[in-house]
């Protein structure tokens, strides 16, 4: 059973999003996602200042197995990338909800959050996939 903090919102594409301050939100991938990717060995930096639409690829995570796009769960401007991942990509495996965050986004329209899943909804989706 993977770890799913209840205070987060989740995208069907396995990202989580958490409000940091005001309209700035932090994005990472779920415990379930890091578990299925396997050991992460490289994370392609998100482009700071880029405007993205919800569903656009904002980063790429390379694991021992494969490369996976990381999508923006909401539309907005990328305002930061977790530079610690350059030297310690394994933080995504070790602390997916914490030190393994990937980028920060300034949300354009907070109502987009309503389209995301809560922890129960995300868990139900995972259960249905099995």
């Amino acid at each position, binding site marked *: 059973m993977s770890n799913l903090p209840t205070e987060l919102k989740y995208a069907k594409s396995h990202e989580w999003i958490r409000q940091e301050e005001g309209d700035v939100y932090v994005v990472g991938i779920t415990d379930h996602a890091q578990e299925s990717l396997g050991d992460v060995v490289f994370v392609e930096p998100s482009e700071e200042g880029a405007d993205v639409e919800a569903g656009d690829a904002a980063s790429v995570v*390379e694991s021992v197995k494969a490369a996976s796009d990381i999508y923006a769960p909401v539309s907005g401007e990328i305002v930061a990338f977790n530079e610690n991942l350059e030297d310690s990509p394994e933080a995504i495996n070790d602390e997916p909800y914490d030190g393994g965050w990937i980028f920060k986004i300034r949300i354009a329209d907070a109502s987009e959050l309503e389209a995301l899943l809560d922890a129960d909804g995300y868990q139900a989706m995972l259960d249905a996939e099995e």
Partner: protein
Amino acid sequence: MTQQTPLYQCHVDMGAKIVDFAGWSMPIQYTSQIEEHHQVRSDAGMFDVSHMTVVDLHGERVRDFLSYVMANDIAKVTKRGKALYTAMLNEQGGVIDDLIIYYLEDHFFRLVVNAATRDKDLAWLEQQAAAFSVEVKERSDLAMIAVQGPKAIEKALQLIPEEFRESVLALSKFEACEVAELFVARTGYTGEDGLEIILPNESAPDFWKALDKVGVAPIGLGARDSLRLEAGMNLYGNDMDESTTPLVSALGWTVAMKDERDFIGRAALEQQKQAGVPQKLVGLVLEGRGVMRAHQKVFVDGDEVGELTSGGFSPTLKNSIGLARIARDSASLGDTVEIEIRNKRIAARIVKYPFVRDGQAQI
């Protein structure tokens, strides 16, 4: 319906993540692929390779048969127990499979072939064996466990009955002996010292659990692939197949053509040599950031010259490495080429491989 090896339940009990590999339910990893990789490089690990096929050949003319069917020359093997790595070619010089041959008795040789090629290998062997009155017998009653790493032999030895330990310790590389019901070979696919042990299916689970007790950790297929890539060993289906000859797959050293021996594929290889071998397989180390993967394109001065046949992350070098088949004259050792990774061109250097041997980085 996927097949299970006799060790399937052991894998599940040890918490393995199971995947379908060539029709077999096999462990891809137990804990972390990178940790398992380091375990083999620094200590000892065990792999279930029971999905591979053991084929016994019996017959008075078995040497003549092997001499004709294999690209390497069985005549090189004169001592009982000695092994030979070879490709088995079709008439066009394409690689049907790569395999190991063990010389057990004058009229008895053993082959270990790949799982994914089992059906066509057996069909081909049967077809060619008829003319030599050689019996081709698949040994599906046998399992196979590879124990690899600098401490592998020392640890595995504890499971060998005392009266046989000396003969196992006396094995040179690429040599095998039979001890009680075990067939023990000093071979492997990791670039480390170690043993590959063939044993009856029913004995395999207890042997596996006993290895675990003496500190040999279970290793999944994920780490098996990164270990063999660091060791610069070809993977059938990736680095060579029926559309490529050994000459374009860095396997020229396994083809014995100096004398007049007639073997299947020889004419095609001679023709290819005469016309000029068009491509070569080279080792690559990524200089920029990212991970190389099989089928990514290789560029020199903007021209596409070939593609990766294997690629991945090297836990030992902490960098991406790969093998690529490129046009023969497009680049040489030490040159920098470009790899197309998701629409970006990233620099990589052509290097001599193996990348890692006996735990030591060679790059």
